């Protein structure tokens, strides 16, 4: 186990080197001079030259890359061209915002998805199964931006149950500690605010969690169906165990392996791919951070942002791999 973990962590190094190369070249393959894009159509020629120089764009690519990597090794993610601030310093609130949203979206997806999958498998071909799988199909096919706008329209504008945007009450912001606002409000001992922040999480979590939920439900169902037909389940059943015990104690554990893989991958996808949800719900997360950096051609932010997401993705997959053993002791590394 320990050797496996170490080996996996060491494998991170070539992956990350590859990532730096890819992000660096993608960013530089985009046609056009970033200084021109930043200053727009009213820019004078001298202004463009000045900006190029101050951005270090006049250096050859190789030199720019070497500087980038050697800075990275010293834990320096670079300085944002737009805000002129060290990315190290400013990236955390964005990561925390995305993490918080991802956690709640995945909680929603897992709790609903796994249970719907189980019940569908248990009552295969029942009306519940039929409805659940129909919703799952709709869930994977629904465009996120449409779902998000509908949620806003119904639950924010018409019913007024939940706020339509942001992470907290704009009129009365709180002093952040960890930038996980739910946690912060608890640390402040301010439970009214905890409820406010939770309310802000409801709509975006549902919008973001719908697709993973649908995928998880379908995966759980098919995996459960397979396990339910296996010999050991028949043995348990012959032993006279109740249906509930059979499903949740004996079947679910073995059925969870492929589900867990999906959960791991989906979590990674949500971390990097929440741009639409973050944009519509004005959630200041890492997806929007990178998106805005792209429109501004803020090279260092694009590079470091993608690198951070890639890093998180790899780490989450590592955790999932380690969890396999915890769930199924037969697995050996």
């Amino acid at each position, binding site marked *: 186990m320990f050797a496996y973990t170490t080996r996996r962590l060491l494998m991170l190094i070539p992956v990350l080197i590859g990532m730096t190369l890819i992000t660096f070249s993608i960013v530089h393959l985009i046609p056009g001079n970033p200084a021109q894009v930043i200053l727009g159509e009213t820019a004078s020629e001298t202004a463009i030259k000045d900006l190029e120089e101050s951005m270090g764009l006049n250096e050859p690519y190789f030199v720019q890359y070497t500087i980038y990597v050697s800075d990275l090794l010293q834990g320096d993610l670079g300085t944002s061209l737009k805000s002129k601030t060290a990315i190290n310093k400013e990236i955390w609130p964005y990561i925390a915002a995305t993490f918080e949203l991802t956690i709640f979206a995945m909680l929603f997806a897992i709790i609903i998805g796994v249970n719907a999958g189980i019940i569908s498998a248990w009552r295969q071909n029942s009306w519940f199964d039929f409805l659940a799988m129909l919703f799952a199909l709709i869930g994977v096919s629904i465009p996120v931006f449409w779902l998000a706008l509908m949620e806003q329209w119904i639950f924010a504008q018409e019913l007024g149950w939940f706020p339509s945007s942001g992470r907290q009450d704009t009129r009365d*912001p709180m002093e952040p500690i960890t930038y996980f606002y739910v946690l912060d409000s608890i640390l402040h001992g*301010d439970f009214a605010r905890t409820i406010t922040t939770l309310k802000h999480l409801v709509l975006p979590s549902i919008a973001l969690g719908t697709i993973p939920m649908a995928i998880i439900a379908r995966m759980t169902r098919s995996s459960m169906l397979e396990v339910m037909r296996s010999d050991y389940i028949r043995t348990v059943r012959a032993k006279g165990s109740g249906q509930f015990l059979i499903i949740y104690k004996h079947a679910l554990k073995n059925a969870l392996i492929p589900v867990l893989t999906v959960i791991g991958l989906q979590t990674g996808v949500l971390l990097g791919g929440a741009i639409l949800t973050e944009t519509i719900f004005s959630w200041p997360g890492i997806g929007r951070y990178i998106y805005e950096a792209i429109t501004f051609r803020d090279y260092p932010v694009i590079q470091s942002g993608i690198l951070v997401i890639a890093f998180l993705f790899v780490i989450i997959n590592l955790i999932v791999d380690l969890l396999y053993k915890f769930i199924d002791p037969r697995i050996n590394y």
Partner: protein
Amino acid sequence: MKLRISLLFSLLLALVLVLAACNGDDNEPGDNNNEPNNQENNEPAEDNNNDSAEASGDNVLIFARGGDSESLDPGSTTDGESSRVTKQVLEGLLTFEDESFEVAPSLAHDWDVSEDGLTYTFYLEEGVKFHDGTDFNAEAVKINFERWADPSHEYAFTDDGYVYSMYGTMFGGYKGDEGHVIKEINVINDHEIEFILNRPLGFFLQNLGMSYFAITSPAALEEYGATINENPVGTGPFKFVEWRKNESITLEKFEDYRVEGLPKLDSVVFTVIPDNAARLIALKSGEIDIMDGLNPDDAAGVESDENLILFERAENNFGYVGFNTQKEPFDNKELRQAISYAIDRNAIAEALYAGYAVPAKNPLPPSYMGYNDDVEPYAYDPEKAKELLAEAGYPDGLEIDLWTMPVARPYMPDPETVALIIQGNLADIGVTANIHREEWAPYLEKTMNGEHQMYMLGWSGTNGDPDYFLSSLLHGSNVGTSNRSFYVNSKVDELLDAAKVAVDQDERASLYSEAQALISEDVPMVPLVHSRPVLATTNAVVNYVPHPSTSESLAEVEIQK
């Protein structure tokens, strides 16, 4: 496993119930009795920290826009979302009138201009304090101007990537450059300062009204150094409190503001809601008070909503189709005129801006000084266009490339559709237009190099002076940079040069007016429309006046419950 999942499930249920229970009672007093909190908030008045704070009448205004500010140091940015905020925090020597670009006093209450237009003396307000408590005086003004002009100035922060491009554009370059207009700045006493120019500049005062040239506290420059872009300290009606990137910028009332009784709000929060539709929903559900960037198509819905008020900004831009006048086939004036008659501007204004645009005939917004209203527009007339086409030597039509821009701009919210309309218009007179697309940066570069035949672009005003439009776009010396039409007419150049250095504004107006007549005859570009951006507020917002520059002071704004 069973226990864990059912526990989670019941937790979720409980959570949903709790949330649902907290919904209806926003206005119930019971909601206010929450636990005492230990947050570091020094204002007890803001303690009731839940949704009911909205209803309690705290004078907080929430202004929502589509993007975050880039920098809160006004001199080093050209970003409208930045100056919208800095306008509240910092003030310049001069400002603009509420609804126009007419120069008005600000930190300078009066000024003298010498006969030759080379010396400007400003008389500064006395007893004005910066937000950090230091005194505003002539020395502070001088330090700010030197900081912008001199890249080696101790507060220029050149090594940290600070570039003062607006200064360079407006004052002809930087210290030591040949074109630099400001020769020296003399502090006469604490409340009098004198600018000596190398040569007259007709729009010198106009420049000083721009929000980019606002005065920062020298003590703050010393204290914050290169992080001044996140810590603005000025003399404005609101002082800076906090900036959460991509989320919100909070300002609060400056108690010692130089104007008695202002500002009327206790605080202003600029928040970011990127999606136009989501922003409108937030406005309708009362989460925000003012929204910028309304879709023209949503304007009718806002107008019919009794809880909302629709606003239009005065036009300060124009979109156009330009020709490369030095290249085949558009070096032919008749051909350019033919095309001009063929394009249906009214159709474009209706189709794309839902009517919130006026068809253009001059490369200058109508509210500007020297706008020539006597210019005869090339009214839509396909028959006449065909005749001219034949006269120009193309009786059977011709095939051309039409370059369309890849990004939406305020003056051109949907370039692709405009290109299609123009393509259709031209097809009617027998001209085949092939639409050509480029990425934004190469688009700007290649049109600068003259690789195009016919192209679409636009221009937005900043200092409210005609020079910024006419000289940038059509002066011969700007060919290869901002004059992408490659238009050179020595008579026009002479007029523009004379207008640039003239001090008498009436004289300038007539010179610009004359230039527009010549330009209209030559048709280096077909002006399409001046757009009127729309925005909306709730009906609780009083005294809000949108400025054509997009940066308006919120000092007079009130919220009535």
